[in-house]
């Protein structure tokens, strides 16, 4: 079931919250490689990291301890303070 509340703004922005615009370039940014906790993620991210580093881009490994639970706010706050963008994906 959906419910609603009324918009308190001047309604100049879209109903859906806008996504943040992606950066024009990754140059100079720190890319967080997010380990979602699935098996063999490290091997996959090792390769991705190698490719980024070959292009001269800075990377940092981040993640959450287990795929069974969502990342905690502390976890996300720590990551957002350490990196500029995050690469994350679902896998199975």
């Amino acid at each position, binding site marked *: 079931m*959906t419910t*609603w509340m*009324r*918009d*308190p*703004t001047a309604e100049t922005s879209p109903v859906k919250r806008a996504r943040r615009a992606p950066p024009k370039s990754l140059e100079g940014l720190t890319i967080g490689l997010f380990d979602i906790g699935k098996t063999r993620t490290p091997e996959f991210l090792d390769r991705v990291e190698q490719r980024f580093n070959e292009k001269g881009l800075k990377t940092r490994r981040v993640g959450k301890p287990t795929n069974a639970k969502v990342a905690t706010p502390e976890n996300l706050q720590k990551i957002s303070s350490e990196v500029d963008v995050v690469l994350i994906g679902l896998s199975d």
Partner: protein
Amino acid sequence: MAERLEAKHKGGTLAARKIEYAETEDPVELAYARGWTDGLPVTPPTDERVIAMLKGTTRRPGDIVGKIPPFLAECTIEKVAINAVMAGCKPEYMPVLLAAIEAALEPVFTLHGVLATTYFSSPIIVVNGPIAKKIGMNSGINVLGQGNRANSTIGRALNLIVLNVGGGRPGEADRSTLGAPSKYTLCFAEDESDPEWEPLSVARGLPRGASAVTLFQGHGPEAFVDQKSRTPEGLTRSFALSLVKMGHDRLTQSARALLVLSPEHYAIYKEGRWDRKRIERALYEATIRPGSELIAGKDGVGEGIPASRANEMVPKFHEDGLMVVRAGGPAGLFSAILPGWLAGRNRQELQLVTKEIKS
């Protein structure tokens, strides 16, 4: 239940767009995610609540109150009601809030500038007249603090309207260097328990018995302590010692100030038969100092007035720059200074605004 039925039938008459969310989502968190809050939680503006809020005014939901800076978006009564719900207002606060918005939108209040300034200021609302008691406003103990619903939420609603309807966000149009807790809300009622005292609204031209809001561009409070003066003359000189330090000892004729005079300090003036006019005039005169003491560069301090004014007697305030409001709890020889916005140096362009509260 009655509200729910009414919302079901009248909900269709509301014009603001619906923001839908799933039953599993928390609307309070949704409001945060959309940037609709001042950092504190808001009450979700459901149809039931907005319709109930609109009953607090006789004005039609589609009527325009004015254009809210910084983006000058038209603000309807309905948008006021939505933000009032979010701030935690009761419907009976609506007339006060509407008068406050109208006062804030008077050109001489310069709401855009108050929002955009790097200084500490935001709108401070003083309420006079019978409506203050009617809606349960506080003019006594902890008057400038937390705890009273009307005091807390009316001021907050005005600031939420600037945020949500006007689009005035900290770090964007709001450029305040440090901000102030008073930017969340600072709204209180004057203590009118002494019939001999001329209320602020009366001093500003409204008849006694009329309900009114007076808006002031300021922040605070700053503490004033004098537990030993016992004469009006001594207390005035004592106030002056603190008032001249407002902002900086050598800043003159820039900001206005509201002096919140506590009951125990007021009792000293009352015993000496001093009324509002006499107190305000005496404070103005007591804060005039020799220019030679205020010269920029004196004692190695860069701040100050030009050396060319060394032989003048320089007032701290403009003649209309200091106003007294009576409020506070019965015990404590403390009063409070609410310093005004530095842009008050443009005396004609920037003024307090008083509006009668109607409906």
